[in-house]
């Protein structure tokens, strides 16, 4: 059996008396694109916050490539090769677009807390940042403060920051939320191209995006995963239809 890229074992999370996650088990295979869907309030974002160390789990175990990362600090989990984006755009607003990307490169390129390197004269660092800008189609916006970008551009930058460090497990939280049709298409193409050869876990409401992008889909309802399967099988799963999808996509 090959080792899972990311594995959740019996994860529970409660805030006070309210139980948000009730025993989630999930194994994300190496190199797959895995979507998590479910109704509002099912706990999708909470699950991401638990995996990335933003919240502490109440009980259970999370493994990243066999390493136990349960309740580790977010920066430690990130250094192990897991990177995430946020549902609400979460960039560095007063810094330029270029600086935003370059910041995400500093730790992976081993600069750590250095106060003896001049960023402007690090050829490889700047070259890499430029390449990433090119990849997310923002070369011509490089000097603008990130807070002044249009919404869809900020989302693209968010994805850029998330993938910049070269993490091989990527968590994207509703990357196309609030986008128009054409923007969504562009975003999906961007995600597809930048996560090539990587393991992707994505939370998404847009079923078009989900069925287009995902290799496998997990359905989260009331803090529990009720099904994990290929898109076609999920579409025809009676439980899923009842709980979430309804009749609209049920064309089996």
């Amino acid at each position, binding site marked *: 059996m090959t080792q899972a890229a990311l594995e959740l074992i019996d994860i529970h999370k409660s805030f006070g008396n309210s139980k948000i996650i009730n025993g989630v088990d999930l194994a994300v295979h190496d190199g797959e694109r895995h979507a998590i869907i479910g109704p509002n309030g099912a706990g999708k974002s909470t699950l991401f916050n638990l995996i990335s*160390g933003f919240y502490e789990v109440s009980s259970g175990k999370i493994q990243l490539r066999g390493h136990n990362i349960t309740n580790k600090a977010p*920066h430690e989990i990130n250094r192990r090769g897991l990177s995430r984006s*946020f549902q609400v755009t979460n960039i560095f*607003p007063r810094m330029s677009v270029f600086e935003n990307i370059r910041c995400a490169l*500093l730790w992976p390129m081993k600069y750590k*807390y250095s106060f*003896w390197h*001049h*960023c402007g004269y690090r050829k490889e660092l700047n070259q890499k940042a430029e390449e990433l800008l090119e990849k997310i189609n923002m070369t011509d916006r490089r000097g603008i403060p990130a807070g002044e970008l249009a919404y869809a551009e900020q989302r693209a930058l968010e994805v850029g920051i998330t993938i910049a460090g070269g993490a091989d497990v990527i968590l994207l939280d509703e990357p196309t939320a609030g986008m128009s049709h054409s923007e969504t298409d562009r975003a999906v193409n961007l995600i597809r191209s930048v996560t090539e050869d990587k393991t992707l876990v994505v939370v998404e409401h847009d079923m078009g995006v989900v069925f287009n992008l995902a290799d496998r889909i997990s359905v989260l309802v009331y803090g529990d995963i009720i099904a994990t399967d290929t898109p076609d099988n999920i579409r025809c799963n009676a439980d899923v239809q009842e709980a979430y999808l309804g009749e609209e996509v049920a064309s089996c």
Partner: protein
Amino acid sequence: MSKTSSSKTWLSALALWGGAALFVALLPIPFRSGFMLSMLSEIGIVIIFALSYNMLLGQGGMLSFGHAVYFGLGGFITMHALNFVNDGVLPLPLELLPLVGGLGGLIFGIVFGYVSTRRAGTPFALISLGIGELIAASSLMLPSFFGGEEGISGDRMAEITLTPFGFGQQIEVYYLIGFWVLVSTGLMYLLTQTPLGRMANAVRDNPERTPFVGYNTHIVRTIQLSLAAFFAGIAGGLFAINYEIVTSEIVGAIPSANVLMMTYIGGIGFFFGPILGAILITLMELMLANITHAWILYYGLMFVAMILWAPGGLASLIMMHKPLVKGRVMSGVLKAYAIMAAPVIILFLGCMGLIEINYHLSLSIKPEDPMHLFGIEFYAQSLVPWAIFLALAFGGFFLFLKTRRIVIKAWQTAGNQLKKKESGS
């Protein structure tokens, strides 16, 4: 980066720093009186202190109410080191003593920084206030280190020096301070360009996101604060050498608040902002204080006005004209400013007159005596000056509101011209 452009940036950097060094070197030629040299020395010390404060507030997003702790401790440590040198215990040239203060600041910065920077925002601000109070309180409990009420003094004319200077004259101290101002400013600028400096910006902008690019925000803040404390300690060391006495007041809340206010007035968004604030406030303190007792009030009013109407400080007021100057569309705006200048001066004179009359009435020993303003003698109790100043204040304010519109319009026109030029080219 191509070769030509990088050599160009090298050249312009060299020109800038060479020019600054030349400026510092030549400044005593026009300002050679003892008072002027003392003033320039004070300004230099305050520049380092304010720049180091901005490493926290402007660059790291840390609002500190206790930065004078590092300045003051640096001063005390330098003074002790100076006395050790004079006792023959410590063989260190005087020129390097500020570095001892800096190292002292650094060590305290690491300790207090680690304790206080787990969170920014309100928790950090309150802990910094607490540490300030702690040090101020212990300064009276530990007289062997802080010298009790009268502080510690020392003789800066030390035996060991690197230069031929004896430091008996103020101009020699001025050059020592000028040297450290150049070195510290250069280093603090370079720090903004390092990975740490960039991540300090990131932590300021979005501490929630920073861990997800691999950085521990607590460590970033601790290092940034420690380095800021290092430069504050250097400034404190120069203070000790300049005044040859350090008292417990310099670790207290007043200098901490002072450095916050002058940094803010100068502008926290640009590297050079605090330099402007340090120069302006020190000049005000030294010159205005001789003229009026109300100078603190003017200082406070200026601070409040800045927060309300120009939160970017003097630096941003200057820098917002940069695109207009670059696009050569400044003339209309300048004309509008010239028109607005008269009402502003009238308004200012009116308010100033009212403030001064009130100060005279409440603070002078014999309010019945005549008071002087611009060489004019009048009685604070008579009605005429009140009427005149009130008229000036209200008239000036009315005209200010009118001319403000002219300025806004001039800005709009300039903006349109700029757009036209951009699309035309």
